[in-house]
């Protein structure tokens, strides 16, 4: 779908985020590197705690610091390193050049301000629009995201909207200033399937129409399969596999990706008698990882996995995996 020649809009290198808590540090994100190409939809899959949200929030200075500490980098976006950028510069990027959509539309909108006010806010802040122009633009935006009777609903409050409509409002806010990148953090998780389908369609449309790049964070492989161009699989605060979407589903390389695909039941096709299970719990990283974070739950784990943290290695043109085990040969690259 995309070739290597498409320019990157966002280039992340060695991003690391640690949180200081009362009982010690939590290494939420460890040396994450990836890039985002113009107009592409990058899916990020992982369970809660895998660091997928924190990664994206760290990029743009949205993790509260303290307790968080973001190191590594650079994170290049439009010619500047976001990690070293001042707060002022970051604010100019946030909401204007990079839009955000969060998981829970119930709580992500401020309950005491009208929807119109919240949509107009970035317009007035970043585009310097006056009230009338911002209001007109806000109406257009609500129209754009498919909210019926937009003009009237500008003065309504979030609680007067259904979940799906609220998420549309969030999207309108994120798109208000024509961002180059839209980061959608589990935007459909809290929604019903029929509404989820609506939102996914909407996002696809909008991307085609507006041409921005999208990072779509989700735990739902079904959603990823339907929408993403390229996929990052995260586990234990790092990227364990990275591939174009078809490649990933057709030829998953990491044991975690494979297991994940198997645990999900299906509404169509064969019904498994018993669900496959990944035993155990995802790890909480108290120290910088020195071993494979998946080793305790991995059926292919061997000595080296607990001695060394596997680096990402290329297994295809744009397909890399952080694992010592090779599913094709079944062999482990032990030292």
């Amino acid at each position, binding site marked *: 779908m995309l070739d290597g020649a498409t320019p990157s809009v966002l280039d992340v290198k060695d991003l690391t985020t640690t949180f200081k*808590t*009362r*009982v010690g540090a939590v290494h939420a994100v460890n040396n994450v590197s990836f890039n985002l190409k113009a107009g592409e939809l990058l899916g990020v899959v992982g369970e809660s705690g895998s660091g997928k949200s924190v990664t994206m929030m760290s990029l743009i200075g949205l993790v509260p610091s303290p307790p968080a500490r973001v190191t590594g980098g650079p994170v290049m976006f439009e010619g500047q390193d976001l990690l070293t950028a001042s707060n002022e510069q970051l604010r100019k990027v946030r909401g204007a050049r990079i839009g955000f959509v969060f998981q829970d539309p119930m709580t992500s909108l401020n309950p005491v301000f009208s929807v119109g006010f919240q949509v107009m806010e970035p317009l007035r802040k970043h585009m310097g629009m006056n009230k009338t122009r911002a209001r007109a633009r806000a109406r257009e935006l609500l129209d754009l995201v498919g909210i019926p009777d937009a003009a009237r609903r500008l003065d309504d409050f979030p609680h007067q909207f259904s979940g799906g409509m609220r998420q549309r409002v969030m999207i309108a806010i994120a798109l208000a200033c024509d961002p180059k990148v839209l980061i959608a953090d589990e935007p459909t998780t809290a929604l019903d399937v029929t509404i989820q389908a609506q939102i996914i369609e909407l996002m696809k449309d909008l991307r085609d129409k507006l041409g921005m790049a999208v990072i779509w964070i989700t735990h739902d492989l079904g959603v990823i399969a339907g929408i993403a161009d390229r996929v990052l699989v995260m586990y234990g605060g790092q990227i364990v596999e990275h591939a174009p979407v078809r490649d990933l589903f057709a030829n998953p390389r990491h044991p975690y990706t494979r297991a994940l695909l198997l645990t999900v039941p299906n509404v169509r096709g064969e019904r498994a008698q018993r669900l496959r299970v990944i*035993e*155990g*719990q995802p790890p909480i990283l108290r120290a910088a990882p020195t071993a494979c974070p998946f080793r305790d739950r991995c059926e292919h784990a061997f000595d080296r996995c607990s001695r060394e943290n596997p680096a990402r290695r290329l297994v295809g043109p744009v397909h890399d995996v952080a694992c010592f085990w090779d599913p094709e040969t079944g062999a482990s690259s032990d030292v």
Partner: protein
Amino acid sequence: MTDLTTLEAETYQKPRNQWWDVWDQFKTHKGAVIGAGFFIFVLLFVFLGPFVWTLDAQYIDIRARNQGPSWTHPMGTDQLGRDMLSRLMAGGRTSVSVGLTAMLLALIVGTFVGVIAGYFRRLDGILMRLTDLFLALPILPLLLVIIMLFRDPLRASFGPEAGIFILIVFVIGITSWMPTARIVRGDVLALKEREFVLAARSIGTPPHRMVTRHILPNVLSPIMVSATLGIATAIITESALSFLGLGFPSDFPTWGRLLFDGTDWLQRNPERVIWPGLAISLTVLSVNYIGDGLRDALDPRIRGR
């Protein structure tokens, strides 16, 4: 996790008394530990102090009136030559006891009303109107009525000092439970909607155990806040009562009373207000910090963090 085979019968810990966990957490709150330390010091000072510093708080040495600090009277003397240090101890004994018991009473009444009002919808309206009523009551006439009706029976049954103590605690208690009731009710209303209450209902937990087991422990934190403020209010209210002639016998010192009596002497003998003033403020402050620490320590969510 499902790997049951690794479980040996002997390896698991017996359920440990949760108060140890509370203590472990409490220890990590610096302010609370200092507060607790100071509060223990206050308790020792007022309850054991008189055994060390044996001057009688009531003894009048008229020749030694209005003295500044000296070796014989480290905190000076009052206008009748009574030793301020022993008066501070004796006063503290009363004030701390009154403060703690009155606060407890107010908390119990307030929590009871709040929980009942929040939990049983039908009683809500009437109980909240009752709270309004108590807020609107003119306290002073109410006190006069109470004193008139109950002082002599109590004095007859418990003796003059204990009788007055009960009376004062009762009076402060029934006139200061309303804010607690309001806050607790609000919290209970919110808690009632939480799923674990529904879960308990699905088990068939009867209402009274629902309240004691599920509601009460979860409204601890507003209660703690009320408690710390309650102690201060009780200590000060007690002094106002003495001032109005409704409190303890006049020669019976309390911190509030010492502070009140000392106010006129502010310019001449400033130590007469400084000591009781400090005693009240620091005690209240220490209780506040203890409350903070306890609130954290009693909340398992914070405890584990």
